């Protein structure tokens, strides 16, 4: 139940949102109902609802995705240390098990909500919605959602984020965009993480990663970044600040009385 906007999307009432099907009699005497509905329509509806929450409070929502261990939490720790005084940040952590990542974030003085998904290899919009209602969005500027480490499953679920940021760490190899097209196609920004390892792992060519991304018709910017040395952090922080300002601008341009209307997907 959502007390902020009164839109109570539950499993029980989601059917009110869909149009009735059209009927046709089949040769075998059965009835064929034409539905034409996205299989993940319910998730997408909740994602749209989450986006309304973020928009209403002018909070930039970033969905961080990557393979396990590509450096998502380390990047967040470095980002909080760099921006924490300037902007109010909170983190939603998705993991199969453990509170480890949330505890790492909290040590940097930021609120972190841990979602343990159990067997689910991805976050979905319902999980994020539950976490949202444990945050005071009115006091925040940015919410980072660290998705479960996985280059496949998270790509299919809209969470209501404004941007997808996908990390590709140098030890993984520069061909990953070609192997995981769905994930990398969804990225609005690609971070080549652990760039401090480029001199050691010299078969990783950032230009190859870019070429593979272009083959996916992606025009996402690419930043080489190291949470360890701080290289590339400036470009990443600059991107974040620009997106924060752009969101404020977008929200400001909307009449507050209509700001509740569903934003474009």
């Amino acid at each position: 139940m959502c007390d902020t906007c009164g839109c109570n999307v539950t499993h029980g009432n989601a059917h009110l949102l869909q149009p009735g099907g059209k009927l046709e009699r089949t040769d075998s005497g059965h009835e064929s109902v034409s539905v034409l509905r996205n299989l993940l329509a319910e998730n997408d509806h909740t994602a749209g609802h989450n986006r309304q929450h973020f928009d209403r409070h002018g909070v930039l929502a970033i969905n961080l995705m990557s393979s396990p261990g590509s450096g998502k939490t380390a990047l967040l720790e470095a980002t909080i240390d760099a921006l924490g005084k300037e902007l109010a940040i909170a983190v939603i952590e998705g993991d199969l098990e453990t509170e480890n990542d949330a505890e790492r974030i909290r040590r940097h003085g930021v609120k972190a909500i841990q979602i343990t998904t159990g067997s689910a290899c991805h976050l979905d919009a319902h999980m994020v919605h539950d976490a949202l209602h444990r945050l005071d969005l009115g006091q925040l500027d940015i919410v980072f959602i660290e998705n479960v480490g996985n280059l496949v499953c998270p790509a299919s679920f809209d969470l209501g984020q404004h941007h997808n940021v996908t990390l590709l760490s140098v030890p993984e190899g520069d061909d990953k965009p070609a192997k995981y097209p769905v994930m990398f196609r969804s990225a609005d920004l690609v971070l080549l993480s652990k760039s401090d390892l480029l001199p050691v792992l010299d078969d990783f060519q950032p230009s190859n990663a870019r070429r593979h991304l272009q083959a996916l018709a992606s025009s996402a910017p690419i930043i080489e970044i190291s949470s360890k040395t701080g290289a590339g952090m400036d470009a990443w922080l600059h991107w974040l600040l620009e997106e924060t300002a752009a969101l404020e601008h977008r929200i400001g341009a909307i009449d507050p009385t209509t700001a509740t209307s569903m934003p474009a997907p």
Partner: protein
Amino acid sequence: MHELAVCQALIEQVKLVAHEQHAHRVVEINIDIGPLSGVEAQLLEQAFSIASAGTVADGARLISKTTPVRVNCRSCGQVTDALPTRLICANCGDWQTRVVSGDELLLTTVEVSRNIPTETPPGITEH
């Protein structure tokens, strides 16, 4: 394997349709899956037999159609066939394209059977 979660969402939708149509059994389910949807049809079919057990969709045929990957070129305006990992315009070679087919994940039709064929329900087309 997120196909199980997708399958559960599918079954919820099918249950709703069956309920609305007062159906006692679902005979066939048709879905369109694009190679860029991130869902493997084969895994979804495997998940279906598990997830549908005991529901109104138990025993239904799940038929998935793979949609072709097609892109619309921003440069030359042509719509051409493409590969999931190579979304380049086949006409002019430009990489700035938009996917117009191949990323769908769609429940298209549900074929149901009813207990008693009573009067023709509203919206039915006889032929």
